[in-house]
Protein backbone atom coordinates (compact mmCIF):
# COMPACT_ATOMS: atom_id res chain seq x y z
CA UNK A 1 0.00 0.00 0.00
CA UNK A 2 2.85 2.35 0.91
CA UNK A 3 4.42 1.69 -2.49
CA UNK A 4 1.17 2.41 -4.32
CA UNK A 5 0.64 5.66 -2.40
CA UNK A 6 4.23 6.68 -3.17
CA UNK A 7 3.80 5.93 -6.87
CA UNK A 8 0.59 7.94 -7.08
CA UNK A 9 2.12 10.83 -5.14
CA UNK A 10 5.05 10.84 -7.55
CA UNK A 11 2.67 10.99 -10.54
CA UNK A 12 0.81 13.89 -8.97
CA UNK A 13 4.08 15.70 -8.32
CA UNK A 14 5.06 15.28 -11.97
CA UNK A 15 1.64 16.10 -13.43
CA UNK A 16 0.38 18.63 -10.89
CA UNK A 17 -0.15 21.26 -13.58
CA UNK A 18 -2.60 19.13 -15.55
CA UNK A 19 -4.33 17.38 -12.67
CA UNK A 20 -4.28 19.98 -9.88
CA UNK A 21 -3.47 23.50 -11.06
CA UNK A 22 -5.30 23.55 -14.42
CA UNK A 23 -8.74 22.43 -13.12
CA UNK A 24 -8.41 24.81 -10.18
CA UNK A 25 -7.53 27.73 -12.47
CA UNK A 26 -10.44 26.90 -14.76
CA UNK A 27 -12.76 26.67 -11.72
CA UNK A 28 -11.52 30.08 -10.54
CA UNK A 29 -12.04 31.64 -13.99
CA UNK A 30 -15.54 30.16 -14.19
CA UNK A 31 -16.27 31.42 -10.68
CA UNK A 32 -15.19 34.92 -11.70
CA UNK A 33 -17.44 34.72 -14.76
CA UNK A 34 -20.39 33.65 -12.58
CA UNK A 35 -19.75 36.45 -10.08
CA UNK A 36 -19.41 38.94 -12.94
CA UNK A 37 -22.72 37.85 -14.44
CA UNK A 38 -24.65 38.01 -11.15
CA UNK A 39 -23.15 41.36 -10.29
CA UNK A 40 -24.17 42.73 -13.68
CA UNK A 41 -20.65 43.14 -15.06
CA UNK A 42 -21.12 40.87 -18.04
CA UNK A 43 -23.53 38.58 -19.92
CA UNK A 44 -22.93 35.40 -21.84
CA UNK A 45 -25.35 35.01 -24.70
CA UNK A 46 -24.66 32.55 -27.48
CA UNK A 47 -27.00 30.63 -29.75
CA UNK A 48 -26.41 27.52 -27.62
CA UNK A 49 -26.14 28.96 -24.16
CA UNK A 50 -27.43 31.98 -22.30
CA UNK A 51 -26.16 33.07 -18.95
CA UNK A 52 -27.57 36.44 -18.03
CA UNK A 53 -29.58 38.11 -15.26
CA UNK A 54 -31.76 39.76 -17.87
CA UNK A 55 -34.09 36.75 -17.83
CA UNK A 56 -35.23 37.83 -14.38
CA UNK A 57 -36.74 40.95 -15.94
CA UNK A 58 -39.21 38.57 -17.55
CA UNK A 59 -42.45 38.17 -15.55
CA UNK A 60 -42.92 34.55 -16.67
CA UNK A 61 -39.52 33.59 -15.28
CA UNK A 62 -40.27 35.23 -11.96
CA UNK A 63 -43.62 33.50 -11.77
CA UNK A 64 -41.99 30.15 -12.53
CA UNK A 65 -39.50 30.69 -9.73
CA UNK A 66 -42.30 31.41 -7.33
CA UNK A 67 -44.45 28.45 -8.27
CA UNK A 68 -42.08 25.67 -9.44
CA UNK A 69 -42.12 22.40 -7.55
CA UNK A 70 -39.00 21.53 -5.49
CA UNK A 71 -38.17 18.69 -7.92
CA UNK A 72 -38.34 20.99 -10.90
CA UNK A 73 -36.22 23.63 -9.17
CA UNK A 74 -33.62 21.00 -8.32
CA UNK A 75 -33.59 19.72 -11.90
CA UNK A 76 -33.11 23.20 -13.37
CA UNK A 77 -30.30 24.11 -10.97
CA UNK A 78 -28.60 20.78 -11.67
CA UNK A 79 -28.77 21.33 -15.41
CA UNK A 80 -27.25 24.78 -15.11
CA UNK A 81 -24.45 23.60 -12.85
CA UNK A 82 -23.64 20.62 -15.09
CA UNK A 83 -23.15 22.95 -18.04
CA UNK A 84 -21.17 25.39 -15.92
CA UNK A 85 -18.76 22.70 -14.71
CA UNK A 86 -18.20 21.20 -18.13
CA UNK A 87 -15.03 23.23 -18.95
CA UNK A 88 -13.37 21.80 -15.81
CA UNK A 89 -14.09 18.27 -17.00
CA UNK A 90 -12.87 19.13 -20.48
CA UNK A 91 -9.61 20.50 -19.06
CA UNK A 92 -9.02 17.35 -17.04
CA UNK A 93 -9.94 15.19 -20.02
CA UNK A 94 -7.16 16.86 -22.03
CA UNK A 95 -4.73 16.46 -19.11
CA UNK A 96 -5.60 12.74 -18.90
CA UNK A 97 -5.22 12.37 -22.66
CA UNK A 98 -1.74 13.95 -22.54
CA UNK A 99 -0.80 11.84 -19.51
CA UNK A 100 -1.92 8.58 -21.10
CA UNK A 101 -0.02 9.07 -24.32
CA UNK A 102 3.16 10.36 -22.69
CA UNK A 103 3.58 8.55 -19.40
CA UNK A 104 5.29 5.42 -20.71
CA UNK A 105 6.84 7.13 -23.73
CA UNK A 106 8.55 9.87 -21.72
CA UNK A 107 10.22 7.53 -19.25
CA UNK A 108 11.80 5.73 -22.20
CA UNK A 109 12.74 8.94 -23.95
CA UNK A 110 14.43 10.62 -20.98
CA UNK A 111 15.72 7.23 -19.74
CA UNK A 112 14.29 7.68 -16.25
CA UNK A 113 12.87 4.20 -16.81
CA UNK A 114 16.32 2.95 -15.82
CA UNK A 115 16.02 4.63 -12.44
CA UNK A 116 12.41 3.60 -11.82
CA UNK A 117 13.20 0.00 -12.71
CA UNK A 118 16.31 -0.08 -10.52
CA UNK A 119 14.04 0.08 -7.47
CA UNK A 120 11.94 -2.78 -6.08
CA UNK A 121 8.68 -1.85 -7.78
CA UNK A 122 7.16 -4.33 -10.20
CA UNK A 123 6.03 -3.22 -13.64
CA UNK A 124 2.51 -4.36 -12.81
CA UNK A 125 2.41 -2.15 -9.70
CA UNK A 126 3.69 0.83 -11.68
CA UNK A 127 1.15 0.34 -14.46
CA UNK A 128 -1.71 -0.18 -12.01
CA UNK A 129 -0.73 2.98 -10.12
CA UNK A 130 -1.11 4.97 -13.33
CA UNK A 131 -4.44 3.31 -14.13
CA UNK A 132 -5.64 3.99 -10.59
CA UNK A 133 -4.53 7.59 -10.90
CA UNK A 134 -6.57 8.36 -14.02
CA UNK A 135 -9.62 6.31 -13.07
CA UNK A 136 -9.99 6.98 -9.34
CA UNK A 137 -7.66 9.68 -8.02
CA UNK A 138 -8.00 12.34 -10.71
CA UNK A 139 -11.84 12.33 -10.50
CA UNK A 140 -11.45 12.78 -6.73
CA UNK A 141 -9.16 15.74 -7.33
CA UNK A 142 -11.60 17.28 -9.80
CA UNK A 143 -14.54 17.09 -7.41
CA UNK A 144 -13.46 19.89 -5.02
CA UNK A 145 -13.12 22.25 -7.99
CA UNK A 146 -16.64 21.43 -9.14
CA UNK A 147 -17.96 21.85 -5.60
CA UNK A 148 -16.16 25.17 -5.28
CA UNK A 149 -17.72 26.38 -8.51
CA UNK A 150 -21.16 25.18 -7.42
CA UNK A 151 -20.93 26.94 -4.06
CA UNK A 152 -19.72 30.21 -5.59
CA UNK A 153 -22.48 30.05 -8.22
CA UNK A 154 -25.13 29.35 -5.59
CA UNK A 155 -23.85 32.09 -3.29
CA UNK A 156 -23.71 34.63 -6.13
CA UNK A 157 -27.21 33.68 -7.25
CA UNK A 158 -28.54 33.86 -3.67
CA UNK A 159 -27.09 37.33 -3.15
CA UNK A 160 -28.46 38.48 -6.52
CA UNK A 161 -31.94 37.07 -5.86
CA UNK A 162 -32.11 38.44 -2.32
CA UNK A 163 -30.80 41.92 -3.12
CA UNK A 164 -33.12 42.25 -6.12
CA UNK A 165 -36.18 40.92 -4.24
CA UNK A 166 -36.65 38.10 -6.73
CA UNK A 167 -36.77 35.21 -4.26
CA UNK A 168 -35.38 34.64 -0.80
CA UNK A 169 -31.67 33.99 -0.13
CA UNK A 170 -32.39 30.36 0.71
CA UNK A 171 -34.29 29.59 -2.52
CA UNK A 172 -31.34 28.12 -4.42
CA UNK A 173 -29.88 26.41 -1.34
CA UNK A 174 -33.16 24.60 -0.71
CA UNK A 175 -33.27 23.48 -4.30
CA UNK A 176 -29.64 22.40 -4.45
CA UNK A 177 -29.07 18.75 -3.73
CA UNK A 178 -25.87 18.26 -1.76
CA UNK A 179 -26.02 14.54 -2.45
CA UNK A 180 -25.15 15.49 -6.03
CA UNK A 181 -21.54 15.57 -4.89
CA UNK A 182 -21.72 11.78 -4.53
CA UNK A 183 -23.52 11.46 -7.84
CA UNK A 184 -20.80 13.49 -9.54
CA UNK A 185 -17.92 11.46 -8.17
CA UNK A 186 -19.60 8.12 -8.89
CA UNK A 187 -20.48 9.35 -12.36
CA UNK A 188 -16.87 10.40 -12.97
CA UNK A 189 -15.61 7.02 -11.77
CA UNK A 190 -18.10 5.30 -14.03
CA UNK A 191 -16.96 7.48 -16.91
CA UNK A 192 -13.33 6.56 -16.22
CA UNK A 193 -14.13 2.85 -16.33
CA UNK A 194 -16.23 3.33 -19.46
CA UNK A 195 -13.40 5.17 -21.23
CA UNK A 196 -10.69 2.89 -19.80
CA UNK A 197 -10.12 0.98 -23.08
CA UNK A 198 -9.19 4.23 -24.82
CA UNK A 199 -6.96 5.35 -21.95
CA UNK A 200 -5.27 1.94 -21.81
CA UNK A 201 -4.81 1.99 -25.59
CA UNK A 202 -3.01 5.35 -25.43
CA UNK A 203 -0.77 4.08 -22.62
CA UNK A 204 -0.13 0.92 -24.63
CA UNK A 205 0.95 3.00 -27.64
CA UNK A 206 3.24 4.99 -25.35
CA UNK A 207 4.77 1.77 -24.02
CA UNK A 208 5.64 0.22 -27.38
CA UNK A 209 5.78 2.87 -30.12
CA UNK A 210 8.73 5.13 -30.88
CA UNK A 211 6.22 7.79 -31.90
CA UNK A 212 3.32 7.24 -29.52
CA UNK A 213 0.80 9.50 -31.27
CA UNK A 214 1.37 7.68 -34.55
CA UNK A 215 1.40 4.39 -32.68
CA UNK A 216 -2.00 5.20 -31.23
CA UNK A 217 -3.63 6.60 -34.36
CA UNK A 218 -2.30 4.51 -37.26
CA UNK A 219 -3.60 1.10 -36.11
CA UNK A 220 -7.02 2.58 -35.30
CA UNK A 221 -7.37 4.46 -38.60
CA UNK A 222 -6.16 1.37 -40.48
CA UNK A 223 -8.63 -0.80 -38.54
CA UNK A 224 -11.57 1.52 -39.22
CA UNK A 225 -10.76 1.76 -42.93
CA UNK A 226 -10.13 -1.97 -43.35
CA UNK A 227 -13.30 -2.86 -41.45
CA UNK A 228 -15.29 -0.49 -43.65
CA UNK A 229 -13.85 -1.91 -46.88
CA UNK A 230 -13.76 -5.61 -46.02
CA UNK A 231 -16.68 -6.12 -43.64
CA UNK A 232 -18.74 -3.03 -44.55
CA UNK A 233 -19.27 -2.39 -40.84
CA UNK A 234 -18.15 0.35 -38.45
CA UNK A 235 -17.87 -1.38 -35.08
CA UNK A 236 -14.44 0.05 -34.28
CA UNK A 237 -15.51 3.61 -35.04
CA UNK A 238 -18.73 3.25 -33.01
CA UNK A 239 -16.80 1.71 -30.14
CA UNK A 240 -14.37 4.65 -30.03
CA UNK A 241 -17.12 7.22 -30.47
CA UNK A 242 -19.10 5.65 -27.62
CA UNK A 243 -16.11 5.54 -25.27
CA UNK A 244 -15.19 9.14 -26.02
CA UNK A 245 -18.69 10.29 -25.05
CA UNK A 246 -20.57 10.18 -21.76
CA UNK A 247 -21.36 6.66 -20.66
CA UNK A 248 -25.06 7.42 -20.22
CA UNK A 249 -25.24 8.55 -23.84
CA UNK A 250 -23.59 5.47 -25.32
CA UNK A 251 -25.69 3.59 -27.85
CA UNK A 252 -25.48 0.50 -25.64
CA UNK A 253 -26.73 2.21 -22.49
CA UNK A 254 -30.12 0.64 -21.65
CA UNK A 255 -31.84 3.83 -20.53
CA UNK A 256 -32.50 6.86 -22.65
CA UNK A 257 -30.38 9.66 -21.20
CA UNK A 258 -32.27 12.70 -20.24
CA UNK A 259 -30.97 16.00 -21.41
CA UNK A 260 -28.28 17.46 -19.12
CA UNK A 261 -29.22 15.49 -16.04
CA UNK A 262 -26.88 14.37 -13.32
CA UNK A 263 -26.89 10.59 -13.36
CA UNK A 264 -28.43 8.47 -10.66
CA UNK A 265 -26.32 5.98 -8.77
CA UNK A 266 -28.70 3.33 -10.13
CA UNK A 267 -27.48 4.19 -13.64
CA UNK A 268 -24.09 2.75 -12.70
CA UNK A 269 -25.77 -0.54 -11.92
CA UNK A 270 -27.41 -0.39 -15.33
CA UNK A 271 -24.04 0.18 -16.95
CA UNK A 272 -22.59 -2.81 -15.11
CA UNK A 273 -25.31 -5.00 -16.62
CA UNK A 274 -24.31 -4.20 -20.19
CA UNK A 275 -22.15 -6.56 -22.18
CA UNK A 276 -20.35 -3.56 -23.72
CA UNK A 277 -19.04 -2.39 -20.37
CA UNK A 278 -17.46 -5.76 -19.63
CA UNK A 279 -16.07 -6.03 -23.15
CA UNK A 280 -14.34 -2.72 -22.44
CA UNK A 281 -12.96 -3.99 -19.13
CA UNK A 282 -11.74 -7.19 -20.78
CA UNK A 283 -10.10 -5.25 -23.59
CA UNK A 284 -8.50 -2.92 -21.04
CA UNK A 285 -7.13 -5.91 -19.13
CA UNK A 286 -5.43 -7.21 -22.28
CA UNK A 287 -4.01 -3.77 -22.99
CA UNK A 288 -2.74 -3.43 -19.40
CA UNK A 289 -1.05 -6.82 -19.73
CA UNK A 290 0.51 -5.55 -22.97
CA UNK A 291 1.76 -2.38 -21.27
CA UNK A 292 3.34 -4.43 -18.48
CA UNK A 293 4.96 -6.71 -21.08
CA UNK A 294 6.42 -3.89 -23.17
CA UNK A 295 7.57 -1.93 -20.13
CA UNK A 296 9.39 -4.98 -18.81
CA UNK A 297 11.09 -5.41 -22.19
CA UNK A 298 12.24 -1.81 -22.49
CA UNK A 299 15.82 -2.42 -21.42
CA UNK A 300 17.57 -0.99 -24.42
CA UNK A 301 19.99 1.13 -22.44
CA UNK A 302 23.11 -0.92 -22.59
CA UNK A 303 26.20 1.25 -22.51
CA UNK A 304 27.91 -1.21 -24.76
Amino acid at each position, binding site marked *: MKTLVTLIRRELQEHRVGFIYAPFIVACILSLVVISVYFGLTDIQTTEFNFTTKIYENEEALEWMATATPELKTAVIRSGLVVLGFPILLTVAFAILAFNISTFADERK*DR*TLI*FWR*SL*PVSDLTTVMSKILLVTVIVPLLVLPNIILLHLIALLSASIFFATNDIVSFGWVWNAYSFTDWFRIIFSLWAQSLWSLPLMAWLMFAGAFAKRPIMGALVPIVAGVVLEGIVLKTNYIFTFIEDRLGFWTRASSFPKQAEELRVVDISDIYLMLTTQEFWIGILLSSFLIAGIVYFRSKNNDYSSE
Partner: protein
Amino acid sequence: MEREFAIKAKGIIKSYDNNHALNGIDLEVRSGQVLGLIGPNGAGKSTFLQAVLGLLNTEGELEVLGLDPRKDRHKLLQKVCSITDVAVLPKWMTVEQVLQYVDGVHPRFNIEKAKSILSQTDIKNKSKIKTLSRGLVVQLHLSIVMAIDAELLVLDEPTLGLDLVYRKEFYSQLIEDYYDGNKTILISTHQVEEIEGVLSDAIFMNQGKVVMKDSIDAINERFLELRPNQDSLEKAKSLNPMHTRTELGREVLLFEGTEKDKLTGLGEVRPPFIADLFMAIMDKTKSEVL
Protein backbone atom coordinates in the same frame (compact mmCIF):
# COMPACT_ATOMS: atom_id res chain seq x y z
CA MET B 1 23.42 -16.92 7.61
CA GLU B 2 26.19 -15.47 5.51
CA ARG B 3 26.00 -16.44 1.85
CA GLU B 4 29.20 -17.78 0.32
CA PHE B 5 28.42 -16.73 -3.20
CA ALA B 6 26.59 -13.57 -4.25
CA ILE B 7 26.35 -14.70 -7.86
CA LYS B 8 26.48 -18.13 -9.45
CA ALA B 9 26.28 -18.27 -13.24
CA LYS B 10 26.56 -21.39 -15.33
CA GLY B 11 26.40 -21.50 -19.12
CA ILE B 12 24.76 -18.09 -19.48
CA ILE B 13 23.91 -17.37 -23.10
CA LYS B 14 22.18 -14.34 -24.56
CA SER B 15 21.76 -14.10 -28.30
CA TYR B 16 20.54 -11.31 -30.53
CA ASP B 17 19.94 -12.28 -34.17
CA ASN B 18 22.43 -15.19 -34.07
CA ASN B 19 25.06 -13.03 -32.32
CA HIS B 20 26.04 -14.18 -28.87
CA ALA B 21 26.18 -11.18 -26.54
CA LEU B 22 26.90 -13.70 -23.79
CA ASN B 23 28.44 -16.93 -24.95
CA GLY B 24 28.43 -19.41 -22.09
CA ILE B 25 29.43 -17.39 -19.03
CA ASP B 26 30.50 -19.53 -16.08
CA LEU B 27 31.17 -17.45 -13.01
CA GLU B 28 31.05 -17.51 -9.24
CA VAL B 29 31.28 -14.25 -7.32
CA ARG B 30 31.97 -14.59 -3.60
CA SER B 31 30.15 -12.35 -1.17
CA GLY B 32 32.25 -9.33 -0.24
CA GLN B 33 34.16 -9.14 -3.50
CA VAL B 34 34.64 -5.87 -5.34
CA LEU B 35 34.70 -7.23 -8.83
CA GLY B 36 35.62 -5.30 -11.95
CA LEU B 37 34.22 -6.38 -15.30
CA ILE B 38 36.78 -5.37 -17.85
CA GLY B 39 36.44 -5.63 -21.57
CA PRO B 40 36.06 -3.73 -24.83
CA ASN B 41 32.74 -2.51 -26.24
CA GLY B 42 30.57 -5.47 -27.13
CA ALA B 43 32.34 -7.77 -24.67
CA GLY B 44 29.02 -8.47 -22.94
CA LYS B 45 29.67 -6.64 -19.67
CA SER B 46 26.44 -4.61 -19.60
CA THR B 47 24.44 -7.53 -20.93
CA PHE B 48 25.71 -9.66 -18.06
CA LEU B 49 24.91 -6.95 -15.51
CA GLN B 50 21.41 -6.60 -16.96
CA ALA B 51 20.96 -10.35 -16.60
CA VAL B 52 22.12 -10.10 -12.97
CA LEU B 53 19.51 -7.39 -12.37
CA GLY B 54 16.80 -9.55 -13.95
CA LEU B 55 16.31 -7.15 -16.84
CA LEU B 56 17.08 -9.77 -19.47
CA ASN B 57 16.07 -13.32 -20.06
CA THR B 58 19.05 -15.56 -20.64
CA GLU B 59 19.71 -19.23 -21.18
CA GLY B 60 21.63 -21.13 -18.51
CA GLU B 61 21.56 -21.10 -14.73
CA LEU B 62 21.81 -17.80 -12.93
CA GLU B 63 21.46 -17.28 -9.20
CA VAL B 64 21.88 -13.89 -7.57
CA LEU B 65 21.76 -13.71 -3.76
CA GLY B 66 20.05 -17.07 -3.80
CA LEU B 67 17.32 -15.89 -6.15
CA ASP B 68 16.56 -16.36 -9.82
CA PRO B 69 16.72 -12.78 -11.12
CA ARG B 70 14.30 -13.54 -13.95
CA LYS B 71 11.59 -14.91 -11.68
CA ASP B 72 12.23 -13.03 -8.43
CA ARG B 73 13.26 -9.64 -9.78
CA HIS B 74 11.05 -7.75 -7.35
CA LYS B 75 12.47 -9.59 -4.31
CA LEU B 76 15.98 -9.32 -5.68
CA LEU B 77 15.81 -5.55 -6.10
CA GLN B 78 15.19 -5.22 -2.38
CA LYS B 79 18.70 -6.57 -1.86
CA VAL B 80 20.40 -5.14 -4.91
CA CYS B 81 21.25 -1.56 -5.81
CA SER B 82 22.32 -0.39 -9.19
CA ILE B 83 23.60 2.69 -10.89
CA THR B 84 23.36 2.04 -14.58
CA ASP B 85 23.84 5.55 -15.81
CA VAL B 86 24.06 8.61 -13.63
CA ALA B 87 22.08 10.77 -16.02
CA VAL B 88 18.79 9.00 -15.34
CA LEU B 89 17.50 10.62 -12.17
CA PRO B 90 14.20 12.33 -13.04
CA LYS B 91 15.05 15.96 -13.75
CA TRP B 92 11.66 17.34 -12.76
CA MET B 93 11.97 16.07 -9.19
CA THR B 94 13.47 17.92 -6.27
CA VAL B 95 16.10 16.23 -4.13
CA GLU B 96 13.56 15.91 -1.30
CA GLN B 97 10.99 14.35 -3.64
CA VAL B 98 13.40 11.74 -4.96
CA LEU B 99 14.43 10.84 -1.39
CA GLN B 100 10.80 10.55 -0.32
CA TYR B 101 10.08 8.41 -3.38
CA VAL B 102 12.90 5.95 -2.68
CA ASP B 103 11.86 5.90 0.98
CA GLY B 104 8.34 4.99 -0.08
CA VAL B 105 9.27 2.10 -2.34
CA HIS B 106 12.48 0.67 -0.87
CA PRO B 107 12.20 -1.21 2.44
CA ARG B 108 15.96 -0.98 3.05
CA PHE B 109 16.39 2.71 2.38
CA ASN B 110 17.38 4.92 5.30
CA ILE B 111 16.29 8.45 4.42
CA GLU B 112 18.00 9.98 7.46
CA LYS B 113 21.29 8.45 6.40
CA ALA B 114 20.83 9.78 2.86
CA LYS B 115 20.11 13.27 4.22
CA SER B 116 23.11 13.06 6.49
CA ILE B 117 25.37 12.14 3.55
CA LEU B 118 23.84 14.92 1.44
CA SER B 119 24.37 17.46 4.21
CA GLN B 120 28.11 17.07 3.63
CA THR B 121 27.70 18.11 -0.02
CA ASP B 122 26.56 21.24 -1.84
CA ILE B 123 23.22 19.62 -2.67
CA LYS B 124 20.18 21.31 -1.15
CA ASN B 125 17.02 19.34 -0.42
CA LYS B 126 14.83 21.83 -2.25
CA SER B 127 16.98 21.87 -5.39
CA LYS B 128 15.49 20.46 -8.56
CA ILE B 129 17.61 17.74 -10.08
CA LYS B 130 17.65 19.59 -13.41
CA THR B 131 19.48 22.47 -11.73
CA LEU B 132 22.28 20.24 -10.42
CA SER B 133 25.52 19.78 -12.31
CA ARG B 134 26.32 16.32 -13.55
CA GLY B 135 28.81 15.87 -10.76
CA LEU B 136 26.23 16.74 -8.12
CA VAL B 137 23.70 14.37 -9.70
CA VAL B 138 26.29 11.61 -9.32
CA GLN B 139 26.75 12.54 -5.68
CA LEU B 140 22.99 12.49 -5.16
CA HIS B 141 22.65 9.10 -6.82
CA LEU B 142 25.54 7.74 -4.81
CA SER B 143 24.03 9.14 -1.59
CA ILE B 144 20.79 7.30 -2.35
CA VAL B 145 22.63 4.08 -3.07
CA MET B 146 24.79 4.42 0.05
CA ALA B 147 21.68 4.79 2.21
CA ILE B 148 20.30 1.48 0.96
CA ASP B 149 21.33 -1.52 2.98
CA ALA B 150 21.94 -3.68 -0.09
CA GLU B 151 23.90 -6.89 -0.33
CA LEU B 152 24.93 -6.36 -3.93
CA LEU B 153 25.74 -3.14 -5.74
CA VAL B 154 25.87 -3.15 -9.53
CA LEU B 155 27.62 -0.24 -11.20
CA ASP B 156 27.52 -0.10 -14.99
CA GLU B 157 29.61 2.79 -16.28
CA PRO B 158 28.56 4.85 -13.25
CA THR B 159 30.87 7.76 -13.98
CA LEU B 160 30.34 7.99 -17.72
CA GLY B 161 30.79 11.57 -18.92
CA LEU B 162 32.14 12.88 -15.63
CA ASP B 163 35.34 14.79 -15.28
CA LEU B 164 38.33 13.28 -13.52
CA VAL B 165 37.74 14.93 -10.13
CA TYR B 166 34.19 13.61 -9.78
CA ARG B 167 35.22 10.16 -11.01
CA LYS B 168 37.91 9.93 -8.36
CA GLU B 169 35.55 11.24 -5.66
CA PHE B 170 32.87 8.76 -6.67
CA TYR B 171 35.07 5.72 -6.19
CA SER B 172 36.82 6.95 -3.07
CA GLN B 173 33.48 7.74 -1.39
CA LEU B 174 32.13 4.38 -2.51
CA ILE B 175 34.93 2.42 -0.96
CA GLU B 176 35.56 4.54 2.14
CA ASP B 177 31.96 5.17 3.18
CA TYR B 178 29.99 2.33 1.64
CA TYR B 179 32.06 -0.81 1.35
CA ASP B 180 32.13 -2.70 4.63
CA GLY B 181 33.63 -5.98 3.55
CA ASN B 182 30.29 -7.78 3.43
CA LYS B 183 28.73 -6.05 0.48
CA THR B 184 29.47 -7.33 -2.99
CA ILE B 185 30.17 -4.75 -5.66
CA LEU B 186 30.21 -5.33 -9.41
CA ILE B 187 31.72 -2.54 -11.48
CA SER B 188 31.85 -2.28 -15.23
CA THR B 189 33.74 0.66 -16.69
CA HIS B 190 35.97 1.61 -19.55
CA GLN B 191 38.13 3.70 -17.22
CA VAL B 192 39.91 0.67 -15.79
CA GLU B 193 42.79 2.63 -14.31
CA GLU B 194 40.39 4.50 -12.00
CA ILE B 195 38.90 1.43 -10.41
CA GLU B 196 42.07 -0.59 -10.23
CA GLY B 197 42.81 0.49 -6.69
CA VAL B 198 39.37 -0.43 -5.39
CA LEU B 199 39.01 -3.91 -6.90
CA SER B 200 39.49 -7.14 -5.03
CA ASP B 201 38.91 -9.22 -8.15
CA ALA B 202 38.79 -8.73 -11.90
CA ILE B 203 37.11 -10.47 -14.78
CA PHE B 204 38.30 -9.95 -18.32
CA MET B 205 35.57 -10.39 -20.87
CA ASN B 206 35.66 -10.51 -24.64
CA GLN B 207 33.05 -11.46 -27.21
CA GLY B 208 30.60 -12.65 -24.59
CA LYS B 209 33.09 -14.90 -22.81
CA VAL B 210 35.11 -14.72 -19.62
CA VAL B 211 38.72 -14.65 -20.75
CA MET B 212 40.24 -14.51 -17.29
CA LYS B 213 39.06 -14.22 -13.71
CA ASP B 214 41.25 -13.84 -10.67
CA SER B 215 41.78 -11.84 -7.52
CA ILE B 216 43.97 -8.75 -7.78
CA ASP B 217 46.40 -10.30 -5.29
CA ALA B 218 46.67 -13.45 -7.41
CA ILE B 219 47.09 -11.38 -10.56
CA ASN B 220 49.86 -9.40 -8.94
CA GLU B 221 51.59 -12.61 -7.94
CA ARG B 222 51.06 -14.32 -11.29
CA PHE B 223 51.99 -11.49 -13.62
CA LEU B 224 54.99 -9.21 -13.54
CA GLU B 225 55.98 -6.39 -15.79
CA LEU B 226 59.61 -5.71 -16.56
CA ARG B 227 61.12 -2.55 -18.00
CA PRO B 228 64.52 -4.03 -18.78
CA ASN B 229 67.76 -2.11 -18.76
CA GLN B 230 69.17 -1.64 -22.26
CA ASP B 231 71.89 -4.24 -21.69
CA SER B 232 69.51 -6.81 -20.17
CA LEU B 233 66.88 -6.74 -22.93
CA GLU B 234 68.03 -9.84 -24.76
CA LYS B 235 68.38 -11.80 -21.52
CA ALA B 236 64.92 -10.73 -20.45
CA LYS B 237 63.44 -11.78 -23.80
CA SER B 238 65.02 -15.19 -23.41
CA LEU B 239 62.81 -15.76 -20.33
CA ASN B 240 59.74 -16.09 -22.61
CA PRO B 241 57.58 -13.06 -21.82
CA MET B 242 53.93 -13.61 -22.64
CA HIS B 243 53.68 -10.14 -24.23
CA THR B 244 55.89 -7.30 -25.31
CA ARG B 245 54.84 -3.72 -25.91
CA THR B 246 56.64 -0.49 -26.53
CA GLU B 247 56.23 2.50 -24.24
CA LEU B 248 57.97 5.78 -25.12
CA GLY B 249 60.40 3.89 -27.31
CA ARG B 250 61.23 1.41 -24.55
CA GLU B 251 60.15 -2.21 -24.58
CA VAL B 252 58.02 -3.44 -21.69
CA LEU B 253 57.80 -7.19 -21.14
CA LEU B 254 55.00 -9.00 -19.37
CA PHE B 255 55.69 -12.32 -17.70
CA GLU B 256 53.28 -14.92 -16.44
CA GLY B 257 54.30 -17.26 -13.65
CA THR B 258 57.92 -16.13 -13.66
CA GLU B 259 59.58 -15.76 -10.28
CA LYS B 260 60.37 -12.20 -9.31
CA ASP B 261 63.92 -13.13 -8.36
CA LYS B 262 64.67 -14.10 -11.95
CA LEU B 263 63.62 -10.65 -13.17
CA THR B 264 65.14 -8.55 -10.42
CA GLY B 265 68.41 -7.14 -11.65
CA LEU B 266 67.24 -7.02 -15.27
CA GLY B 267 65.39 -3.77 -14.82
CA GLU B 268 62.38 -2.25 -13.12
CA VAL B 269 59.93 -4.97 -11.99
CA ARG B 270 56.39 -4.39 -10.82
CA PRO B 271 52.89 -5.83 -11.14
CA PRO B 272 51.22 -4.74 -14.37
CA PHE B 273 48.36 -2.24 -14.53
CA ILE B 274 45.07 -4.05 -15.11
CA ALA B 275 44.54 -2.17 -18.36
CA ASP B 276 47.94 -3.23 -19.68
CA LEU B 277 47.38 -6.81 -18.59
CA PHE B 278 44.02 -6.83 -20.31
CA MET B 279 45.52 -5.52 -23.55
CA ALA B 280 48.23 -8.17 -23.35
CA ILE B 281 45.72 -10.96 -22.85
CA MET B 282 43.59 -9.64 -25.71
CA ASP B 283 46.64 -9.55 -28.01
CA LYS B 284 47.59 -13.06 -26.91
CA THR B 285 44.05 -14.33 -27.52
CA LYS B 286 44.00 -12.69 -30.95
CA SER B 287 47.36 -14.17 -31.98
CA GLU B 288 46.27 -17.62 -30.76
CA VAL B 289 43.14 -17.37 -32.90
CA LEU B 290 45.14 -16.25 -35.96
